[in-house]
């Protein structure tokens, strides 16, 4: 009982929350790409929402509060709604189980193995634990100050990019593409 109280009240809580959110992220991410119960793309989209929300939790644990809010607003709000909208629009049938190609399996396993090997190698080559305790707070004020002083040019360019994307989407979705 005392250990439990220490776990919740003490400094260990962020660590516990990290493992919870990390497990949730990875589990839901795995269910996005391969769900044993359903082949419906809508299910994948829903698990993508869960992945993104638990990732926003990880952002909060990293003190990136503004990005956590943006993550939920933009990804869980706009992007997933767009995905669901397209899935419904296309009226995709419950996809039948196709045989996984041998080539795809081998290529997938090899590339994932390569990624993991690179990761382990780089983790061993660097000493990550010898860092001072971090103090950066990613709140809206400090991020906004940086965004409108040092990064004002990329900010404007990104707004133009959004305009370009909007025009492109309108053109692409016209009935008779010339």
């Amino acid at each position, binding site marked *: 009982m005392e250990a439990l109280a220490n776990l919740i009240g003490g400094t260990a809580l962020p660590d516990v929350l990290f493992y919870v959110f990390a497990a949730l992220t990875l589990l839901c991410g795995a269910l*996005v790409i391969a769900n044993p119960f359903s082949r419906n793309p809508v299910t*994948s*989209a829903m698990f993508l929402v869960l992945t993104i929300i638990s990732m926003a939790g990880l952002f909060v644990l990293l003190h990136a509060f503004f990005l956590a809010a943006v993550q939920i607003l933009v990804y869980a709000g706009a992007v997933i709604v767009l995905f669901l909208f397209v899935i419904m629009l296309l009226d995709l049938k419950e996809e039948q189980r196709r045989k996984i190609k041998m080539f795809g399996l081998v290529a997938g396993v090899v590339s994932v193995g390569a990624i993991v090997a690179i990761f382990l190698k780089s983790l061993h080559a660097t000493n990550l634990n010898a860092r001072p305790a971090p103090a950066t707070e990613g709140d809206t004020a400090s991020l906004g100050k940086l965004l409108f002083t040092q990064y004002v040019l990329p900010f404007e360019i990104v707004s133009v990019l959004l305009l370009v994307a909007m025009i492109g989407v309108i053109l692409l979705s016209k009935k008779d593409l010339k």
Partner: protein
Amino acid sequence: MHVGLEQYLTVSFLLFALGLLGVIMRRNLLIIYMSLELMLNAANLALVAFSRFNDNLNGQILVFFIITVAAAEVSVGLALIVALYRKRQTAHVEDLTSMKL
């Protein structure tokens, strides 16, 4: 075990590997697209973790821009998928082989 940069990077790499696996193994265009989003999110997580543990906000600014560009990319990509579906009535990469030699 104390949670540091190493643990966050592990999660990020695993998520990236999952997304890569999805892109390579799945045959549905929309699922492939969702796996791409997973990979983008994994990169974002790594950037935020680096930003936090290096006492530097530049990584978070970069993530902000990545999220913006990803939103634009998703809208254009889904419009392409809809246009493709209208022409070919399929969202399966195996049925879209007209550029094969």
